[in-house]
């Protein structure tokens, strides 16, 4: 069976028309004075989903999270959690907890007291609090740091205390605002997997805000790409990467080559595109753009093959000249200047130590790709 990209886990309630949405943003708008942070946005998140809001800073993703937590009220629209309208419910009465970007650990309390804080507010009996705190400390592997104050911990440890504190109350939804932003690269990668394991173990719904696409791709079941207060696309990481629906999304996630052109004709199961400079491209992945309309053909660098001769069986092949070669060890990135002047980026995995068809600066070269390697974008 074919699948788009790789499957992360067998969990896809968004494909089930009967699945009940857990969190619903219903035409939500948030304005700060003249500035519209979130613009008429609708979004559905399912129970036990690991959902990521991905976007550049200022795109409204944090505002969305803060509205869910109750720190901001929407200017218009509703937010529903498990069927309940959250309007007017103050943060301290919402069954959601947030892990802050700055961690917001109480500096005058020990690790233990920080974790117990939310449980005390709930009025949980002392012995139960102790038990839960011990459990949480074990979960984040900080047992021996229980009596320390936050300033005596490393950045990674503080991050884990913040995490333990926010999940201690077993919230319905855990909100994470750039949870790994303050960690260094190596620790961030480790922690990504820890967070995923934790989410599985506790069976919670996670909504994470991030500007790091790799982080979102690694952890999330689905990603919402946001721009200027609007959702551009909501899809699984594989769909976002392999089947972006707009130029913005294609550009925002990963590297991409774009060819401007027009739809020349539709055949039974393929679309023929005439590029702006006359080159022809055949696409057969079900693009529905009307004949004659202006479109963009987008293709990822690793889907493009570079060779010194035109491959005999290639449907799509364009000729050019090697402009730049970057050898990165695991792969080689070629910049090919096509004869019409456009520069195409192609990457080849160095699967063997010896290159059969070595190419270097100024060599004539062909770039070729399969008809299903790219997508047609109409917006």
């Amino acid at each position: 069976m074919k699948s788009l990209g790789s499957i992360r886990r067998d969990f896809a309630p968004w494909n089930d028309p009967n699945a009940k949405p857990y969190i619903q943003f219903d035409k939500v708008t948030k304005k700060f004075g003249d500035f519209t942070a979130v613009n008429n946005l609708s979004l559905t998140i399912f129970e036990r989903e690991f959902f990521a809001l991905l976007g550049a800073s200022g795109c409204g993703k944090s505002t969305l999270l803060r509205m869910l937590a109750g720190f901001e009220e929407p200017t218009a629209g509703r937010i529903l959690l498990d069927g309940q309208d959250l309007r007017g419910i103050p943060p301290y009465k919402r069954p959601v907890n947030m892990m802050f970007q700055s961690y917001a650990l109480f500096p005058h309390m020990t690790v233990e007291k920080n974790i117990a804080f939310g449980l005390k507010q709930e009025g949980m009996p002392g012995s139960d609090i102790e038990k839960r705190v011990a459990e949480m400390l074990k979960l984040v592997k900080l047992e021996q740091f229980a009596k320390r104050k936050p300033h005596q911990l490393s950045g990674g440890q503080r991050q884990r205390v913040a995490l333990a504190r926010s999940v201690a109350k077993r919230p319905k939804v855990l909100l994470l605002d750039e949870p790994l932003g303050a960690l260094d690269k190596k620790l961030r990668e480790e922690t990504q997997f820890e967070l995923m394991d934790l989410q599985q173990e506790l069976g919670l719904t996670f909504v994470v805000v991030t500007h790091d696409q790799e982080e979102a791709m690694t952890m999330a079941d689905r990603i919402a790409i946001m721009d200027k207060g609007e959702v551009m696309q909501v899809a699984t990481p594989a769909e976002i990467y392999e089947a972006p629906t707009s130029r913005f999304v294609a550009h925002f996630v990963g590297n991409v080559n774009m060819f401007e052109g027009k739809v020349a004709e539709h055949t039974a199961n393929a679309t023929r595109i005439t590029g702006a400079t006359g080159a022809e491209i055949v696409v057969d992945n079900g693009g529905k753009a009307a004949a004659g309309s202006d479109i963009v053909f987008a293709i990822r660098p690793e889907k493009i093959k570079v060779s010194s001769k035109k491959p005999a069986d290639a449907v799509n092949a364009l000729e050019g000249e090697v402009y730049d070669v970057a050898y990165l060890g695991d792969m080689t990135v070629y910049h090919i200047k096509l004869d019409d002047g456009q520069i195409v980026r192609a990457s080849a995995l160095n699967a063997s130590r010896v290159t059969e068809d070595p190419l270097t600066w100024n060599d004539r070269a062909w770039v070729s790709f399969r008809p299903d390697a790219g997508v047609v974008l109409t917006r």
Partner: protein
Amino acid sequence: MTDIAATAAPSTETATLPARLAKGFVNRLVIIIPYLWLLFFFLIPFIIVFKISLSQTAISMPPYTPVLDFSDGISGFLAGFRELNFDNYTWLTQDALYFNAYVTSLIIAAISTMLTLIVGYPIAYGMARAPATIRPTLLMLVILPFWTSFLIRVYAWIGILKPEGLLNQLLMSLHIISQPLVILNTYTAIFIGIVYSYLPFMVLPLYSSLEKMDYSLVEAAEDLGCPPIGAFWKITFPLSLPGVVAGCLLVFIPAVGEFVIPDLLGGSQTLMIGKTLWNEFFSNRDWPVSSAVAVILLLVLTIPIMFFQQAQAKAQEQGR
């Protein structure tokens, strides 16, 4: 082998020694400046006052007998030690007036400090939570009263508080009261005066500790189920304690020795140590006794504060 080590070690040391000495000197110089300040403007004046407190009144200029003077040479100076007497200090214990004045002053200062804290905290909190653009203006408004004379501002309160003053006129014209309130020349007037005069000293340290507090801590507390009032007492207030302590000390210490406010607003029957000291000095022209009063006042204030600060430092050390 040992020879090599022995000869190698000093050579590296001598190379860095002058540089280290120079660096050490610069570091020390920086520390020396505040100590010199304290020496010239605190310790030496204090020694002079202490010396006067050990002498006797005399009809002369200045109006006390010389004590520990170098005019008789070193032997005379040493002989002076044997003649030292603490009569002025024993005198302070014999007259209940002084004890009462000390105690009243401490109580008045403590109550006014509490009142200043209660009035000042909301002001500082409001300032710290105000939009960042208007904070400098608010700060300016707090400091603005300092631009007029302290004496004139306290005088102005007489005009407000006296029986036919502005406050009574206002309240009577609003028919809230039918008889003028007697506020001037009571302890109430002293409290009003101290709270008014020392409010900036309370607001500024509170503001600085509240302003640098990360507001997301309060949000985190609310997020964890704590209502805003609870979050204030559990998070905001404990974290502003250094500001509270600094503000209270800045108000309490000068308030204990306050003279102008009790004299102008408190009338003749109020008893405060600052006024007692003034009377000793200017009315009785008894410099030695007033010096003794001042020395005792200093001890009464510094010794508890020293212990307090030591305890606080220790608590902080344990907290770490």
